[in-house]
């Protein structure tokens, strides 16, 4: 078995580029439409509509080539030709109880098959020790062949059979078949049955003593309840015998071992008796969009690396904002703004904790990672008080500034024209009011050592938004490539004291004023937790949008935090497309959740690594295209670790993904 060899080679080839073994996405290897349509975008790839009127529906439209519903790019995950001397290293011979057995491996027309599942007192199978990832889509291919139809008709099941099984199990009980999430089985007389739970789903017939090609294609999608499920299409001898069959909820797939990053199943060759065989077996996973996998970078940041004064960050640093630009010497410049406090945020249910914002900057070589010791900062807060928080009543007048977002406005050379900073600012109109925030937008913001004097009024106050008592987590999207017409301001709408459940947007002019519509702000609802699925059942917050303007339209991707249960924050993704970019001044395209959300859970190794007592949390995420390579997105994941004893620590973990159209 040569599992994963292509993956390994791929990484070796690109080693210099810092490739990890994770599969970073590259969603636009194929140009949209291939130049054959009328310049629009297929908005949705599974709605049975020709959204852009180019006579190509859904996956037939090359716009959708890199979407999970359509991706045809494959990366082999398992390849077995049954010629190895010892199959036991890669396969479990099931049942493992009731006596050992071995399989015959005849060569038929030059191809090695496995079969002869003897003795025939039980179904027997070779189950892959490795799990093959399928949750983001994948394929299983094999060849079946029956050589002896004696006493078996072409339309009836026979007690001699062999086939391929996808299963969560690694063993079977003597006398029983493997638990089959999906199985394609050739019976000796030529009947081919597709089964689940050993119940027939579909059937066809095949010719005896000829190779029968079988392909199972898996695609992720959302069911009627917005739950991610895996669907299958089964092709036998190039004839489709089953299509759009809901195999299993993705939550029920194997998610350990080889499938820890992308859930999947074990693959098995199963049979009973002699005369029916399973040929070479190949599995592959989709090699297109994979927002749930990241290239890990080495330079994990902590407050001390940013040279921020402990006087205001000694207890907490998080909620990062990141921007990338080229500087005059053609290096890459990174601007990072974080919120920090000298008191633990965990004290918030007890008392008011104050926060401030700090700015740090560094440069890297083109394509490089940043170093830990080259960050420049003012040390003290760029916005807010030092210290921002005190528990002895000495700074009751302080008001928090939190949750920064940076929008880098670049010239054609990628050099920084302006940095636009938005953040949540605690209301000051009433000295007794606490915990209520509005949004402040500032442009320009200068370098790290430049302090910002806050204007007297908020850019957007909750008084202007009747549904929301507080506005948090602002983020800006330009409505045109140069933001000449202004921005959409996304923010978390806090309706009550509990977790927020909606992300809204308000139009902001170039002059940073709220655009009015019918006597109030021009505003839209962007995401609603109850419409997203169970992963967001307990709330959503912190939108991080990235927009790309192309000749044929725009694509908007919004990463955000979502919680299934209170406190269980994870990173999720929603995407929107439109071919009418001029509409962006008035309307935001409707984001659709990615089929396999969340893309990064609180239980992932990225969050839990080094964590004591499993009490670590995602506190924020920043996303920015790299100025030196806009196809690369850099993420900065903020996590708070519970350390042994009473300590906690905050880390900013750099990650990257490739999206040729971020």
């Amino acid at each position, binding site marked *: 078995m040569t599992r994963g060899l292509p993956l390994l080679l791929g990484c070796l080839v690109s080693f210099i580029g810092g490739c990890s073994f994770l599969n970073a996405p590259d969603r636009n290897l194929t140009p949209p439409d291939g130049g054959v349509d009328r310049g629009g975008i297929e908005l949705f790839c599974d709605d049975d509509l020709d959204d852009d009127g180019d006579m190509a529906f859904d996956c037939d439209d090359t716009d959708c080539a890199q979407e999970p519903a359509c991706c045809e790019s494959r990366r082999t995950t398992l390849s077995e030709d049954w010629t190895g001397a010892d199959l036991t290293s890669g396969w479990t011979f099931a049942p493992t109880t009731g006596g050992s057995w071995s399989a015959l491996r005849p060569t038929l027309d030059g191809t090695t098959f496995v079969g002869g599942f003897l003795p025939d007192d039980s179904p027997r199978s070779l189950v892959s020790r490795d799990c093959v990832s399928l949750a983001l889509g994948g394929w299983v291919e094999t060849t079946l062949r029956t050589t002896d139809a004696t006493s078996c008709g072409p339309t009836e099941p026979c007690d001699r059979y062999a086939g391929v099984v996808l299963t969560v199990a690694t063993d*079977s009980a003597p006398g029983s078949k493997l638990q089959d999430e999906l199985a394609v089985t050739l019976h000796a007389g030529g009947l081919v049955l597709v089964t689940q*739970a050993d*119940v027939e789903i579909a059937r066809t017939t095949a010719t005896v003593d000829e190779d029968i090609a079988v392909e199972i294609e898996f695609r992720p999608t959302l069911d009627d309840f917005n739950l991610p499920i895996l669907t299958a299409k089964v092709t036998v001898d190039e004839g489709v015998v089953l299509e759009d069959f*809901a195999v299993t909820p993705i939550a029920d797939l194997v998610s350990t071992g080889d499938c820890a990053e992308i859930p999947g199943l074990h693959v098995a060759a199963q049979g009973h008796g002699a005369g029916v065989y399973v040929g070479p077996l190949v599995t592959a996973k989709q090699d297109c969009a994979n927002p749930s996998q990241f290239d890990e970078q080495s330079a994990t940041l902590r407050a001390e690396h940013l040279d921020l004064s402990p006087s205001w960050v000694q207890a907490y640093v998080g909620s990062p904002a990141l921007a990338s630009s080229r500087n005059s010497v053609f290096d890459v410049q990174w601007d990072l703004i974080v919120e920090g406090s000298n008191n633990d945020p965990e004290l918030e249910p007890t*008392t*008011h904790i104050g926060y401030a914002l700090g700015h740090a900057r560094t440069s890297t070589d083109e394509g490089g990672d940043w170093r830990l010791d080259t960050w420049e900062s003012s040390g003290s807060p760029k916005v807010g008080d030092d210290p921002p928080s005190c528990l002895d009543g000495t700074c009751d007048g302080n008001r928090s500034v939190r949750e920064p977002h940076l929008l880098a406005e670049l010239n054609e050379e990628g050099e920084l024209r302006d940095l636009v900073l938005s953040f949540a600012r605690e209301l000051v109109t009433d000295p007794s009011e606490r915990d209520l925030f509005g949004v402040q937008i500032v442009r320009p913001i200068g370098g790290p050592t430049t302090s910002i004097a806050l204007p007297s009024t908020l850019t957007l106050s909750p008084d202007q938004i009747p549904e929301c008592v507080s506005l948090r987590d602002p983020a800006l999207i330009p409505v045109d490539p140069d933001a000449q017409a202004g921005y959409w301001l996304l923010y978390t709408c806090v309706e009550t004291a509990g977790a927020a459940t909606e992300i809204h947007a308000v139009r902001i002019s170039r002059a940073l004023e709220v655009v009015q519509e019918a006597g109030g702000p021009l505003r839209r609802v962007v995401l609603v937790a109850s419409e997203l699925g169970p992963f967001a059942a307990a709330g959503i917050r912190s939108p991080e949008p990235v927009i790309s303007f192309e000749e044929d339209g725009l694509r908007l991707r919004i990463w955000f935090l979502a919680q299934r249960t209170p*406190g*269980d924050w994870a990173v999720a993704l929603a995407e929107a497309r439109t071919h009418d970019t001029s509409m962006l001044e008035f309307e935001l395209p409707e984001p659709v959740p990615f089929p396999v959300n969340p893309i990064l859970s609180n239980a992932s190794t990225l969050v839990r690594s080094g964590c004591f007592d499993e009490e670590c949390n995602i506190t924020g995420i920043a996303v920015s295209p790299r100025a030196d390579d806009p196809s690369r997105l850099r993420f900065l994941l903020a996590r708070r670790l519970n350390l042994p004893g009473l300590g906690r620590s905050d880390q900013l973990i750099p990650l990257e993904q490739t999206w040729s159209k971020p």
Partner: protein
Amino acid sequence: MSQNRRIQRWKWLPWAALLALVVAGCGDSSNAAGLGPDFDAGAAGSGGSGDRAEGAGGSAGSGAPQNDGGTSGVTDNPVDLLFANPGRNPGDALGAGLEAATDYAAGARACYADTGACGSAECSAFASCCVKTGACCAPVLNDATLPAALDFRQCAGQTADACAQDNGSDAVSFGQTDPVLSGRGLIPNGTATAEGGVVIGELVNLSSHRVEVEVQFTLPVGCNGTCLESAGVAFTSSAPGAFVDAEVGLLLSGSRDAVNLMIGNAVADSFDAGTDSTKWRLVLSPDGSAQVFRDGNLLGVYAFNAAALQQAQLVVFGRNLGAATTSAAIATLEFAMAFCDNPSAWNERQEIAISLDSNPVPAHAFGTGPSIVDQMVGKRMAYEVDGEIFLSEEEAFGEFFLEDGNPALIATEPYEAQGVGDPELVWDGNFLSLFYTARDSEGVGSIGAAVSVEDVPVFMKGQGPTLAPDGDVLSYDAPTVVYRDQLWLLVVRATLADGATELRAFYTSDPDTGWARVVNGGLEELTRSEGPASEVTDPSLIIHNSAYHLYYARRAGTRWSVELAVSDELLLWRSLGDVLGGSSEDFDSLGARSPDALSQPDRIELVYAGQDGVSFRLGAASRTAPSDTAPSIF
């Protein structure tokens, strides 16, 4: 037209309210003699259209249920006789007219629409609404899990543990500095870096118990906007550390002059703290609802994860940087506990061990279709192995032994050519009956019956199957039977000519004379399965707390789970969905099927088959469930 519909839609409300008024509360549901069914013995028969037919071993009839125009079968069946507890005199409420039947059906539909409706006072007449609503709970008396009341102000100068012990409980302090008890109450004494407080009492199962916590806070004095003064009471699932994980509770924030409702260690809502005399009440129901009251006024209802709090610990916690004379404190606490019927709250779940002569019988651990019965002097469990039925006796919960290695029932008849299985044991007070699936040489299933009159069961089969397929039914299997008050009730799976399957209910006063089908009810629609990707089977019917509880197994893909539906009269069903699924570990990690439930006093036991991806093994589970709290009369 639409106006008429609206009027009809709401006609049930006054009816239901009237029923609620006559409900006397939690009464005795024992069945009084002489209130049993009063239809002629031997008159049961084919039930396709509800007609009664004659003849031993009769078929169930072939008539397809007809739409009844709104009464949902109330007028098509002897509903007054079918009520789970005829001692509640349901006939008085049902009346005789079509209008009353329509109102009853509409009322049931409206009450069963969602948990909130079913748990409301208007729906309290339905015993089915006792399940998974937090209603009909039975008070926990003489239990030291939590003290009835703690007035910390009366314990000034004592330790928290001494104070708790004086009130019949115990308390363990945590934090860097011990809590202080003063005239203000209990000051938790946590710091900026670590929570302080006490753990009170023993573990509480919030998935099966309703807990009412009444708390009176003492507000801090001179607390400004950033003072660190807090005091709270909450349930937690982990030992207190630097920060208490308040899964659900109330926390007084001095700086905010607010009381926060904490859920999942986050602020779910926040309320004005009031004064020192303000009384706060937190009512936690096993259905996962948390109600907050301030001075008796309901402030809101919130969801919390009760299922994850089977072993919750009560903590009083907080942080106090000010002087003890001005600190935030807990002045008083009062607790009331009751256990409720939460069908998902299984608190014992283990693999069944079967032995013969004190030696394990491994093959029998993989037995299928288990059935358990309580003969008052002991419990027996039947199961199938390789087409034969075995009978074991219970030694302890989850442990059974065989008298010998011989099956209790084997295939002997032509209609049993492919074996016997799906055993169903029924004890009628005198005799032990065994119903089972018999499959002929074509695989067609019918329901067989046998009875034993011996202390050591020896089953004698009846003449032919007690229920044989006919008409649109190709096969019957998986019987479950209840006997009460001279009435036999049967639910089976029917496989129809179009390939679909559904569960059907029957009744008779004498199984030897045939069965009448319950028609135009909701069971068929609820359990109908038409595609190969899903399946419904293995029903198990019991009567518990004046309601029918019908457990059954549903397969979705490869995964099995046990679902529950409840009904007052075997006709209109309230579906409660999954109640037992994969445990993520051990023998039932992936799922569960083949449930057979047993109603016990204040408890339900269940035997089932656990799925681990390799095989199905017998398992046992149990949970608390009040058996005598449903409204005593209609």
